C-alpha cells in the first residue's frame, strides 16, 4: 500500500509502531516505511527510484539505512517500521553505502551537465554534491549508446511527440516505466535489454504519446527524458515560478508556471502537487496548454466591423461603439434586449461581473455559461440540476469500495479522476464498473464494462434497479413502489432494450447494494444528451432505491475549469432561490424578464426578440452541437460583441471583437468540481492590449454609467455567493421514467458522438503546438471491425454524412471501440464537426462512405 494512501486513512483506528530514528522516538501507523516515517519527521533520506505515488521497488539502493541487529544495510523505501527498531540514517556505514551507489551510478553517466536541460534541478547533481565523492576511480572509457540515425553526440532520440530520450544519462531508476504502467495504465514505454546495457525506450514501432506522457519527463531524476517544449530554451535557475491552476479540466490541477523576468513568456508548466486533487500527476493538456497563452495568433487589439470588414481600433473607440449600439437598441426597441454567453473556464470575478452587467445594465435574464450544450432544461431544480448540485470529493475515491462511472470517458473528460480510480485499483482494489454507450480505454480498470445501446441510457439505469429487485438486494416495499414508475418494468425487457447482460447487471446491482462506500460519477454523455433530465431522473430513482447517497457520493461532474463556480455564482438564466436572493441583495435590483438559456436565447434571436449578444470566451459556432442553428441565429443579430483570445468562427460574425486575456495573465479564483475555490496567480502580462473579462465588463458598465463594477464590490458579491450551499435536496418520491424510443432511419444508421480529443479541450488548445504534435486534425474514430467491414484503413479519407451536412475526415482505428459507434473530436476549427448535429436529436446519426480518389 502506498504511503499516500495510508496517510489519508484515519489515524485513530490504525495500530501504530514506535521505533527509534536517529535517536528520536517516532510513532507511525503500522505498515509505514522507514523512508516515509523519516520524511514525516523531516529527516532527509536521498532517493532516485522512489516516488510517493508508486509502489516501491528498491532498485536504486540510494535510501540505505542501518538497522541495529540487521547485518546488511537496508533500503528504507521497502522497510516497514517495526516496534523497537533502532535505525540510523547517517551512520558511517550508511554514508559509505550511499557514496558507493553514487559512484556506481556515475561510472557511465556523461556529466554533460552544462548542456543538459536537467542541470540545476537534477537529483543526481544535487545528491552527488550532498552525498558523493569528488574523485573518480573509474579509468575506463564510459559506455555510450548511439542512435545510428542521429548525428549528435548526445544520443538524442525522440520517443514521443514531446519526449526526447538520452539513454546515456539514464540511471535506470525505472520510475518512468513504472509510472506509465502503474499510474497511467499505459504500455507505450518499456525497458529493453538487460544488465548495464538496459535501455528505456518506446515500444518497437510505437511512440510515447499517451495523455499523461509529460509526467514521465517531470519525474525523471536526471536529464534522460526531456520535453521538446522546454529543452534548450532557458536554464531553470533563470526562471521563476508562479502558482496557478489548469484551465482545461474541472478538478483544477495545481501547476506552476515557469517564466523569466525579461521575457513576457511562459516557458513550461510542472505539477504543483496537491494530493487531495491531482497526486502530482497532470495531463498533457494541463502541461502543454500554457502554449495557448504564448501563441503568436493572439488577438492584440479590439476590432470593429466596418463595411463588412473587421479593423483594429483603440479600446476607447470599441467601448464607445458598444455604448452607442447599446443605446441604439434601447431606443429603437424601448428596452434592452441583450443576452450574454460566457465561458465556464473564466474566473469567478469575470463570471460575476458579467452576470451583474447582464442583470443590472441590460436588465435581462438572458444569460448562460453552457454555450456548447443543446436543449438544456430551464428550471434550476430539474432532475439534472438536482443531481448536478450534489457534492463530490476526489479524495473519497481512494477509500470507496465500489466505483461506478456512468457515461464518462474519464481519460478525455476527467483525467485526474481516472488516475485516482486507477490508484484505488492498484492499492485498495475496489469493485469498479464502467457504463457507456461505447467502450472506452478508461474502462481498463473496470471489473465489468457495460456497453449499452446508444440512446438507451435511462433504460440501462432502470435495468440496474430491476436487477437489484430481482436479486432481492433492495427494500421490498420500495421495489414495489419503484416498479409502478418505470417502463419497461421487468429486467428481461429492460436488458433487452439496452443490450446488457442480465447476469452482469445483477453483479452490478449487488455491488451497489452491498457496497459500504460508493462513488458513482456521471459524465458528459448525460450532460450533453438532450434527454439529460430523463436519464438523471432514472439515476435519482436508482439512488433512492439503493440508498446510494447515504453511503457515498453520486454526482454529475462539472466539465470545465469553473463550471461549478458558474453554477454557484448564478451564471444561469434562473438560479436557485438562495443564489437569486444573494444576487438581489448585492445588485439591489433583479430583472423581471423571462429567463432564457443558450437555446432560449438563440430561439429568441431568431424571433428578433433579442437584438444584441455578448459572448465572452465561448465559441458556440464551433462547439454547439448544431452549427446551422447558431449560425442562423448569430446572423439575425443586430449587434454581437465577442471577447476571445483568438479569432474564431464566432468572432468572425461579431460587430466588435475584444481581445481577452488568458488565465495566466491575471489573478483569478476558480471553483473546481468539488466546490473548492482555488487561486491562480498572474504569471505574465496580458498579450498585446488584451484585458481580463472583468476589466472589459467594468469598462463597458462604467461607460454606461454603472459604477459598482470595481474589483472590491465584485469580490464581495462573489464571496457572498460562494458561501451559500447550493446542494439541492434529492427528491423523496420515485420519478416516472418511460424509456424514450427513437426511430433509426435506414440510411443514417451509425450513432456518432462528438468528443474531446485526449490531447485537446474545447477550442483553445488547437493553438498549443505541443498538443498538436499529438493530434493536429480531426478524425473519424471507428472500431477495427467497422473499418474492415467498410474496407477502410487508417488515415483513409471518409465521407461522413448526416441529414444536414457532410464532412470528409481521415479514419482512425480505435483499439477500444467495438461497436458501430463513431467518434469525432470537436477541437479543430478546420473540421466543423458540430455541423453534422441537429439540436433536437438525442443521438446524431450519420452514414459513411469511402472517398474514391
Amino acid at each position, binding site marked *: 500500500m502506498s504511503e499516500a494512501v495510508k496517510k489519508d486513512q484515519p489515524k485513530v483506528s490504525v495500530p501504530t509502531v514506535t521505533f527509534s530514528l536517529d535517536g528520536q522516538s517516532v510513532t507511525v501507523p503500522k505498515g509505514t516505511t522507514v523512508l516515509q516515517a523519516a520524511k514525516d519527521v523531516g529527516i532527509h533520506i536521498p532517493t532516485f527510484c522512489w516516488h510517493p505515488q508508486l509502489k*516501491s521497488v*528498491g532498485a536504486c539502493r*540510494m535510501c540505505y539505512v542501518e538497522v541495529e541487529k540487521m547485518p546488511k544495510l537496508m533500503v528504507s523505501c521497502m522497510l516497514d517500521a517495526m516496534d523497537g527498531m533502532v535505525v540510523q540514517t547517517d551512520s558511517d556505514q550508511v554514508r559509505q553505502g550511499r557514496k558507493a551507489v553514487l559512484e*556506481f551510478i556515475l561510472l557511465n553517466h556523461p556529466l554533460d551537465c552544462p548542456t543538459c536541460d536537467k542541470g540545476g534541478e537534477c537529483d543526481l547533481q544535487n545528491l552527488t554534491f550532498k552525498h558523493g565523492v569528488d574523485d573518480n576511480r573509474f579509468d575506463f572509457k564510459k559506455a555510450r549508446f548511439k542512435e545510428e540515425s542521429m548525428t549528435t553526440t548526445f544520443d538524442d532520440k525522440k520517443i514521443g511527440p514531446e519526449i526526447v530520450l538520452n539513454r546515456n544519462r539514464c540511471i535506470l531508476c525505472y520510475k518512468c516505466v513504472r509510472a506509465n504502467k502503474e499510474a497511467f495504465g499505459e504500455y507505450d514505454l518499456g525497458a529493453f535489454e538487460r544488465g548495464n546495457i538496459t535501455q528505456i525506450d518506446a515500444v518497437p514501432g510505437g511512440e510515447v504519446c499517451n495523455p499523461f506522457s509529460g509526467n514521465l519527463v517531470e519525474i525523471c531524476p536526471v536529464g534522460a527524458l526531456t520535453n521538446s517544449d522546454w529543452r534548450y530554451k532557458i536554464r531553470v535557475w533563470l526562471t521563476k515560478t508562479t502558482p496557478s491552476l489548469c484551465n482545461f479540466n474541472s478538478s483544477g490541477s495545481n501547476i506552476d508556471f515557469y517564466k523569466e523576468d525579461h521575457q513576457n513568456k511562459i516557458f513550461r508548466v510542472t505539477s504543483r502537487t496537491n494530493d487531495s486533487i491531482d497526486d502530482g500527476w497532470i495531463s498533457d493538456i494541463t502541461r502543454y496548454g500554457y502554449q495557448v497563452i504564448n501563441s503568436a495568433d493572439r488577438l492584440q487589439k479590439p476590432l470593429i466591423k466596418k463595411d463588412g470588414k473587421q479593423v483594429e481600433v483603440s479600446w476607447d473607440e470599441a467601448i464607445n461603439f458598444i455604448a452607442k449600439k447599446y443605446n441604439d437598441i434601447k431606443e429603437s426597441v424601448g428596452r434592452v434586449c441583450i443576452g450574454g454567453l460566457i465561458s465556464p473556464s473564466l474566473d469567478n470575478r469575470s463570471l460575476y461581473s458579467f452576470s451583474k452587467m447582464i442583470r443590472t445594465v441590460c436588465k435581462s435574464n438572458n444569460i448562460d455559461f453552457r454555450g456548447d450544450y443543446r436543449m438544456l432544461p430551464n428550471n434550476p431544480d430539474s432532475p439534472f440540476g438536482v443531481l448536478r448540485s450534489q457534492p463530490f470529493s476526489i479524495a473519497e475515491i481512494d477509500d470507496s469500495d465500489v466505483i461506478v462511472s456512468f457515461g464518462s470517458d474519464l481519460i478525455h473528460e476527467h483525467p485526474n479522476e481516472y488516475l485516482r480510480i486507477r490508484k484505488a485499483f492498484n492499492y485498495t482494489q475496489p469493485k469498479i464498473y464502467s457504463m457507456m454507450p461505447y467502450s472506452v480505454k478508461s474502462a481498463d480498470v473496470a471489473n465489468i464494462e457495460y456497453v449499452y445501446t446508444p440512446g438507451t441510457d435511462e433504460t440501462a439505469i432502470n435495468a440496474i434497479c430491476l436487477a437489484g429487485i430481482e436479486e432481492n438486494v433492495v427494500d421490498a416495499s420500495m421495489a414495489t413502489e419503484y416498479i409502478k414508475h418505470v417502463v419497461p418494468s421487468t429486467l428481461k425487457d429492460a436488458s433487452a432494450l439496452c443490450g446488457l447482460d442480465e447476469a452482469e447487471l445483477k453483479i452490478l446491482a449487488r455491488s451497489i447494494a452491498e457496497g459500504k462506500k460508493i462513488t458513482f460519477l456521471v459524465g458528459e454523455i448525460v450532460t450533453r444528451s438532450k434527454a439529460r433530465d430523463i436519464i438523471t431522473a432514472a439515476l435519482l430513482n436508482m439512488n433512492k432505491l439503493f440508498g446510494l447517497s447515504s453511503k457515498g457520493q453520486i454526482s454529475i461532474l462539472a466539465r470545465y475549469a469553473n463550471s461549478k463556480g458558474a453554477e454557484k455564482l448564478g451564471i444561469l438564466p434562473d438560479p436557485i432561490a438562495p443564489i437569486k436572493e444573494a444576487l438581489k441583495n448585492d445588485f439591489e435590483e433583479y430583472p423581471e424578464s423571462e429567463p432564457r438559456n443558450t437555446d432560449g436565447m438563440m430561439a429568441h434571436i431568431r424571433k428578433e426578440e433579442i437584438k444584441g449578444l455578448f459572448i465572452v470566451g465561448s465559441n458556440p459556432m464551433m462547439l454547439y452541437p448544431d452549427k446551422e442553428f447558431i449560425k442562423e441565429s448569430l446572423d439575425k443579430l443586430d449587434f454581437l460583441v465577442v471577447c476571445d483570445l483568438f479569432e474564431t468562427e464566432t468572432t468572425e460574425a461579431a460587430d466588435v471583437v475584444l481581445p481577452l486575456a488568458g488565465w495566466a495573465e491575471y489573478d483569478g479564483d476558480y471553483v473546481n468540481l468539488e466546490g473548492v475555490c482555488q487561486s491562480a496567480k498572474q504569471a505574465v502580462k496580458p498579450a498585446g492590449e488584451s484585458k481580463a473579462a472583468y476589466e472589459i465588463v467594468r469598462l463597458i458598465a462604467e461607460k454606461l454609467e454603472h459604477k459598482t463594477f470595481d474589483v472590491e464590490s465584485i469580490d464581495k458579491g462573489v464571496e457572498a455567493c460562494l458561501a451559500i450551499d447550493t446542494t439541492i435536496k434529492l427528491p423523496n418520491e420515485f420519478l416516472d421514467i418511460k424509456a424514450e424510443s427513437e426511430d433509426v432511419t435506414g440510411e443514417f444508421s451509425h450513432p456518432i458522438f462528438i468528443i474531446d480529443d485526449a490531447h485537446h479541450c474545447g477550442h483553445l488548445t488547437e493553438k498549443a503546438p505541443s498538443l498538436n504534435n499529438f493530434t493536429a486534425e480531426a478524425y473519424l474514430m471507428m472500431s477495427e471491425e467497422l473499418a474492415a467491414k467498410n474496407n477502410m484503413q487508417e488515415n483513409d479519407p471518409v465521407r461522413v454524412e448526416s441529414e444536414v451536412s457532410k464532412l470528409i475526415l481521415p479514419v482512425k482505428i480505435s483499439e477500444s471501440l467495438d461497436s458501430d459507434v463513431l467518434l469525432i473530436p470537436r477541437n479543430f476549427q478546420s473540421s466543423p464537426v458540430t455541423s453534422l448535429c441537429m439540436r433536437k436529436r438525442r443521438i446524431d446519426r450519420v452514414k459513411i462512405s469511402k472517398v474514391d480518389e
Partner: protein
Amino acid sequence: MHYSPVITNADIAAKDENLHLFQYVEDSKQCEIDTFVSRGGYKAWKKVLEGISREDLINTVKASGLRGRGGAGFPTGLKWSFVPKDSPKARYMVCNADESEPGTCKDRVLMERDPHAIIEGMAIGAYAIGCHLMFIYIRGEFDHCIDKMEAAMEEAYAKGHLGKNVYGSGYDLDMIVHTGGGAYICGEETALLNSIEGERGQSRMRPPFPAIEGLYASPTIVNNVESLAAVPHIINRGAEWYASIGTEKSKGSKLFSLSGHVNRPGNFEVPLGFNLKDMIYNPDYGGGMLGDVPLKGVIPGGASTPFLLPDMIDVALDYESLQEKDSMLGSGAIIVFNENTCIVWILKKLIHFFRHESCGKCTPCREGTAWLEQMINRIEAGQGEAGDLEKMEEVCGNILGRTICPLGDAAVMPIQSALRLYRDEWQYHIDHKKCMVKSNFEFK
C-alpha cells in the same frame, strides 16, 4: 529417442535402495507413463488424495528434513507451511526448472528421463498448499526437457492424474508448462514469477515473500525440480526412511553435476555427506584428474560459490561442512580445474557470465559487475595496474549484500574467494603483465 550423453551413476542407484532419484534414469521407457506407473509411479499422489490431510503432508515433508535443492537449502516442508491458511486468493505451485547456474545440469536429466516423477512431486506439493493450478518454468534453451515435460503432462492428463476431479477425489489440478526466454536471473524465484506474469525478468524485493504474495500477488511456492522429485519417495517410504539418509543436519540424497578436469564428468546421486575427494577420485564417480595433472581448485556448488583449494577437498558434501570451509553446497555443481588453468581466466569467464546476466534492476549489481569485468579483463590481458586488486575488493564489498537478489552476491563471492586464495597469481599477472600458467595451458 534423444539422450544427452551424460554419465550417471544409475547403475549404482539401481542397486542402492536409498538412492531414489536416479534409480531408473538410464531406462528410456521411464519417461513413458505406463512404465512409470508400473514402477510405483503416481502411487504417492493417489495415496495423498485418498486421505492424507494437508497438515500431515506438510509435517511429513518437514520431518523428512528435505531441503531446497536449488541452491539456498531452505527446508521444503517449512516453506510450504508459510502459505496462509485463510487467504481468499488462489495459491500457486511453481516448479523452478530454469536450471542455469553454470556447471549445473542435474534437473535436466530428471526432466528428460523421469518427467513423471517431477509432475507427481509437483502435484503433491500443490495439494499441500491448496493449489489448483501449477506451473513448471523451464529454461528456454532446454528444448528436449520442454518436449518431454509437455508429453508427460499430456499423458498425465489423459490417464487422469491431472485435470478435473483427480481419481474421483473432487480435487482439481491443472498444470502449465511455461518456458523461459533465456535469462539466468529467471531462475531466481521472484524474477521467475515476474516472467510468468509476462513482466520483465527482474527480481522483486522481499518481503513480501512469494509464500505470502507471489504469482499474481497470490500465495506461491517455488520449488526446485530435484526437491519435488524427492517428495513422492518421501510419501511412499516415509519421512523416517528419508531422514535416515545423509547426515545429522543434511538429510537425503543429492544430485551432483561434476565437470571440469576429471576423467568422468557427469551427474551422480549420492547421500548428502559424501566425500568430495571421493567424488573426484573414486573410479565410480569422477575417476581422477584428467591426464593426472594435479588439482588446482574446486568450485563445489555452482559458479557462484567460493573456491576450495586442494588441501580443503577432504570434506563432506553437505550444507554445514562446506559452510565451515567458507563455501557452499549451492546447486551441487562441482567444477574441478587443474594446475594448468589460469585463475584470472576463470574469473574472467565467470564475471562475463554474471555481467551479461545481471538483470539491470538494482544499481550495485548492474554497474558493479560491468566494472569488475572491465578490471578483470584488463588484468587478464596483462594490462592490470597497481591497486587494481584493492579496488576490486572494494567494489566487491560494495556489491555484496547490497543488492535485491543473490545475483550480486553470486557474482562477487567467487571473485572475493579467488582474490583471497590465489592472491599471488593475481599479483603475478599485474606485476609481470602475463599469466603464471599460460605457457603450459592445454585445456580448451
